[in-house]
């Protein structure tokens, strides 16, 4: 590739052709501020509409200032990134953006993690010189995500996530000029759109225009209610990211501190969604083997591949976009929703309390979980199996609010019996983890032999779509893995067109899996953070004594005492679900 020599702020550098000035500047240690620009390296995720103009620089001989994020290098170019002309222009650009932004940082949910706020600080904006009319738009609250587009700066990151990465197509820029907003079709509410609540738009929104529906108030009230027994479950990916909220290095595992914090918050029982993840493997793994064996025997009614169903964003996706294929995913509920009925129908009975007096709270890296726990099919006489779902970020807020010095907490253990889990469960948090966990159990159940090497490293990684063949003692099992809904779409289209060669496919809606979920601490476009969370997850797995779901003694006890056998009648009733066609009449009512 051709190399281009140029001078940036007096420093000479050489970069490949077509490099942007933004990236070229990084090679000489110059960090040009950006606002609309966004990227997740190694994941094919990039947004550079060149819209905000905060990254403008002066290029010698060019009449206008140039946006560094979209201008490519040229031989002999002389670039100035912080001369007086650039600094003034950059500040004016920001002041103009701020002139149509509500100055309510004191009460804004995004305050402290807002990129617009930190940009105003970085550029030293101390007053708002441009006062005038501000755009006013209604607030839209869906079961998981709040849109407050008055705070939108039209960076288009959410659109890029929703359309290019996730191929969901819920959001688009509509109208023009001052009236322009990012909205669903016909400016309907998000709830009426094909939105999957994956929350990736929230993950990348630089401001408070897109935030999660906050359930912490409800949880605080439940904890204060003496009549209620409040039970909490924590998803695998939370322990690998929560520490970031308290200044710890990304990839720090805080399982023990998280348990201690939850106990201090006043939860009566601190349990683990990982327990339910082991349960999911028992049910989903059994279903996989059943379908596989019948398929191999030539049963024409059996459909393969089987698709995982633990990701609620993914479930929403196929209900909206591929409803005709909704009989292919496993009927197993997600771990969150398996935990609910086990807590309320099994554990509550053990305690001798009515299910109405038990409140189940989940801590999730996810926003779709907020919607999932409100679905009607997961309620008994109006009482939801899982009452409230908090994101990792909301838990961090709750811990801070309650005067808990997180970093000084001792490591504590989960309560029993619903707190015991295996290494197979914890890897649910990373892309490829669910299918690896399923393989560990399915292998032993299918072959009747002991699996010596439990690490299926061929299933790990961050490539968009991964394919691997696992040897089940002579029987090759073809496995597909996709993370990000756009990648999932490719696999689904192959199945629809009869081109799929897979026996089983794992799909996670978020890039990287749950560790990159819409409810996690903001990564601000640093893909290294997602990788470090991933390695933390696998570290936790490697450190576990038991690493196969079916060897979890409390799972075995649960089947002996209560459930009977996997995919049996009781399991079917409590742990399996069905899916709906949500494609019709999304926008326009009959």
């Amino acid at each position: 590739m051709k190399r281009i020599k140029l001078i940036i702020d007096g420093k000479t550098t050489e970069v490949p052709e077509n490099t942007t000035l933004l990236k070229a500047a990084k090679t000489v240690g110059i960090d040009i501020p950006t606002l609309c620009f966004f990227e997740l390296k190694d994941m094919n995720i990039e947004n550079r509409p060149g819209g905000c103009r905060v990254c403008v620089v002066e290029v010698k001989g060019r009449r206008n200032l140039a946006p560094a994020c979209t201008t490519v290098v040229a031989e002999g170019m002389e670039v100035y990134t912080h001369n007086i002309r650039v600094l003034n222009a950059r500040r004016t650009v920001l002041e103009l953006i701020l002139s149509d932004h509500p100055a309510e940082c004191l009460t804004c949910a995004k305050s402290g993690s807002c990129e617009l706020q930190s940009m105003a600080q970085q550029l030293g904006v101390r007053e708002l010189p441009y006062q005038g009319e501000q755009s006013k738009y209604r607030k839209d609250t869906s079961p998981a995500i709040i849109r407050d587009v008055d705070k939108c700066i039209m960076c288009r990151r959410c659109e890029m996530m929703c359309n290019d990465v996730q191929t969901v197509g819920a959001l688009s820029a509509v109208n023009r000029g001052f009236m322009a907003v990012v909205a669903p079709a016909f400016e309907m509410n998000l709830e009426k759109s094909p939105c999957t609540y994956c929350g990736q738009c929230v993950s990348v929104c630089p401001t408070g225009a897109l935030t999660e529906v906050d359930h912490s108030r409800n949880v605080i009230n439940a904890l204060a209610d003496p009549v209620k027994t409040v039970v909490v479950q924590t998803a695998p990916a939370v322990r690998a990211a929560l520490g970031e909220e308290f200044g710890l290095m990304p990839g720090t595992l805080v399982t023990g501190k998280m348990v201690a914090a939850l106990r201090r918050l006043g939860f009566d029982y601190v349990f683990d969604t990982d327990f339910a993840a082991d349960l999911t493997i028992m049910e989903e793994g059994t279903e996989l083997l059943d379908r596989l064996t019948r398929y191999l025997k030539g049963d024409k009614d059996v459909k393969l591949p089987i698709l995982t169903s633990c990701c609620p964003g993914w479930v929403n996706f196929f209900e909206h976009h591929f409803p005709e294929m909704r009989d292919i995913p496993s009927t197993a509920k997600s771990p969150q929703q398996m935990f609910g009925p086990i807590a309320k129908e099994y554990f509550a009975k053990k305690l001798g309390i009515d299910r109405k007096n038990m409140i189940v709270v989940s801590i999730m890296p996810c926003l779709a979980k907020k919607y999932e726990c409100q679905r009607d099919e997961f309620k008994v006489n109006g009482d939801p199996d899982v009452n409230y779902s908090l994101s990792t970020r909301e838990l961090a807020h709750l811990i801070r609010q309650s005067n808990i010095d997180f970093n000084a907490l001792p490591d504590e253990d989960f309560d029993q019996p619903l707190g015991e889990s295996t290494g197979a469960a914890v890897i649910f948090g990373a892309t490829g983890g669910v299918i690896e966990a399923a393989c560990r159990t399915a292998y032993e159940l299918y072959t009747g032999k002991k699996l010596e090497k439990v690490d299926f490293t061929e299933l790990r990684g961050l490539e968009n779509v991964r394919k691997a063949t696992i040897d089940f003692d002579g029987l090759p099992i073809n496995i597909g893995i996709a993370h990000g809904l756009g990648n999932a779409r490719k696999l689904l289209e192959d199945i629809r067109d009869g081109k799929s060669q897979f026996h089983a496919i794992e799909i996670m809606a978020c890039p990287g899996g749950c560790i990159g979920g819409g409810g996690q601490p903001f990564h601000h476009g640093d893909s290294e953070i997602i990788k470090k969370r991933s390695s933390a997850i696998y570290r936790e797995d490697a450190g576990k004594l038991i690493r196969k779901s079916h060897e979890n003694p409390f799972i075995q006890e649960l089947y002996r005492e209560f459930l009977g056998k996997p995919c049996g009648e009781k399991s079917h009733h409590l742990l399996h679900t069905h899916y709906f066609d949500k494609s019709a009449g999304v926008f326009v009512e009959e």
Partner: protein
Amino acid sequence: MAKIKLAETKLQELKDVCKSFNYEKGELINVLHKAQGIFGYLPAEVQEVIAKELNVSVAHVYGVVTFYSFFTMQPKGQNPVSICLGTACYVRGAEKVLEEFKRQLNIQVGETTPDGRFSLSCLRCVGACGLAPVVLVGEKVYGRVAPDGVADIIAEYRI
């Protein structure tokens, strides 16, 4: 947004248009242009059909429809009123005529009266500058229109 029933023949025509553009996503604007020719406007249902045929999101189609002022989601009235705002008409008081139409019909430019009889739009020069200011109702041209003549024009179509 209430659902309206698209006529079967027009719907087929729309699908044929999409086909004639090979269902290319990049032809969205051309397809919308033709669709507006067929239906007179672009109701939500038409946008949904186009989105499905071209395999793009409805939000995207709506985004394009709302970006270009040529596209409209309002059905045209039985008597579309167009006021020329070209240079000649403008300097001879077309804007005052427009204001009078807005006042008397009680609608804004791009809108249609609730009874569906009138819609209001602006255009740039119909090549009859000698008659400025010019107003069109349907195909009929009215020349040298003054604000106090507006009531008479409207009355002609109210019978």
